[in-house]
């Protein structure tokens, strides 16, 4: 390894010495070595012969004149169109911004920055914590009789009571009340008709105003039929569609963000394609 390196260094010195490209000091040092080293002399001589042979190659003359005519000058190579670079830059920037926006959206919706919003979401829990009485039945909420009533056909074709019954709200212990309350499809039969007060008694009066739901009662059991709005004449009411619409409707900021993302995506892809096509053409 060392020998090879040393050999290459000597080769460079000898080659440069032939061309008078060494400093006076280097030349003197090399000449001293050449006097005492026959191998170095032989290598120098070989290089000198090679250089001489190369220099003796005939200088070829151009087979024709390369002078330019006005036509040759005007027929220039297609220069790179100036907007090609701009197109590429714009496309790249759009792609980068798109990635950044996706990142920001992720942070706002799923990442650590999303916590304040996530905490605001469970409104029921918040409302319960505030001590505000909650209704037992909420129209349109899935699982509370609305959607399921429609799906299961509960309440369909049931005669309405002439005087709808006022249902009072349940006490604060909503979870317990919900647990205790029979599901719409599992109305206990052992509860006699005309005894809905048993349940209603447990409801606080404070919620009369907000949740004075006028519920129709079953003729036989006297229990309220969940999912039926008496004002709508016994129709099967389901506000689940409202709920779904509300759920799928995105906030305004997210809609705007989505529009910008689509626009950026279009710029990135379109610009990239256009740049590629122009580059291929050139």
């Amino acid at each position, binding site marked *: 390894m060392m020998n090879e390196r040393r050999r290459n260094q000597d080769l460079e010195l000898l*080659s440069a010495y032939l*061309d008078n490209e060494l400093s006076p000091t280097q030349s003197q040092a090399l000449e001293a070595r050449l006097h005492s080293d026959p191998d170095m002399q032989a290598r120098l001589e070989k290089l000198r012969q090679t250089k001489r*042979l190369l220099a003796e190659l*005939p200088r070829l*003359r151009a087979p024709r004149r390369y002078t*330019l005519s006005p036509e040759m000058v005007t027929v220039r190579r297609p220069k790179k169109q100036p907007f090609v670079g701009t197109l590429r830059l714009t496309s790249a920037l759009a792609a980068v911004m798109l990635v950044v926006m996706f990142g920001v959206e992720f942070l706002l919706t799923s990442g650590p920055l999303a916590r304040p919003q996530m905490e605001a979401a469970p409104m029921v829990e918040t409302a319960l914590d505030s001590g505000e009485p909650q209704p037992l039945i909420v129209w349109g909420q899935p699982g509370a009789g609305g959607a399921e009533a429609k799906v299961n056909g509960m309440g369909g074709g049931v005669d309405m009571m002439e005087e709808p019954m006022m249902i009072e709200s349940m006490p604060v212990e909503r979870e317990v009340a919900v647990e205790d309350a029979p599901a719409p499809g599992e109305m206990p039969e052992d509860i006699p008709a005309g005894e809905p007060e048993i349940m209603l008694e447990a409801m606080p009066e404070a919620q009369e105003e907000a949740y004075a739901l006028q519920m129709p009662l079953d003729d036989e059991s006297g229990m309220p039929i969940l999912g039926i709005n008496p004002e709508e004449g016994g129709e099967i009411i389901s506000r689940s569609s409202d709920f779904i619409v509300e759920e799928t409707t995105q906030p305004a900021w997210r809609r705007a963000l989505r529009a910008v993302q689509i626009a950026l995506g279009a710029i990135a892809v379109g610009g990239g394609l256009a740049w590629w096509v122009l580059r291929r053409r050139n």
Partner: protein
Amino acid sequence: MDEQILIQNALEGDLASFNSLVLHYQDMAYNVAYRIMGEHGAADDAAQEAFISAYQKLEQYRGGSFKAWLLRIVTNNCYDELRRRQRQPVAPLRPEMPDGERVEDPYWLEDDNPLPEEHSEQSELQAAIQNCINALDRKFKVILVLVDVEGLDYQTAAEAAGTPVGTVKSRLARARERVQECLQGFWELLPETFRLRDEETL
């Protein structure tokens, strides 16, 4: 006329001034291109392209050696062509007859009257040397041609090749050694002095 004045006139759109420069440098451009490419046709194209490019890029010339600047364009053209050939190897021109038999020498390639420069190259030694140059790697070949064939000093060669002087120095030494080794295969063609000296060292 002064070279710088011709360049200035050419920059102002005077094509005749530029053509004066072309006539002055065209042999050098062709010779360098031929030694690098090893083919007359390719050298012809490279030289012509170099002058067209030089005119189009003349505003990029920032003074200094116009010869080195022009040679850099020539060598770059040769580099590009060699690179292109490396990517897309040229198929041999061996057309087939309708019966499927291959034609060794198509009529359009037949030329019993060699050009003057080809005639001079019929010297076998010169052909052997060119063969050894062709066998070199591109980066070594360009430096060898610029210094040993064209006779440029290290500084001008460095400008023409777009490399530092130190790189020119090391590449030239290796290129010379490789050509020297290659020429051993043409022992009988070498001059007597070359052979005798070499025998002494064996």
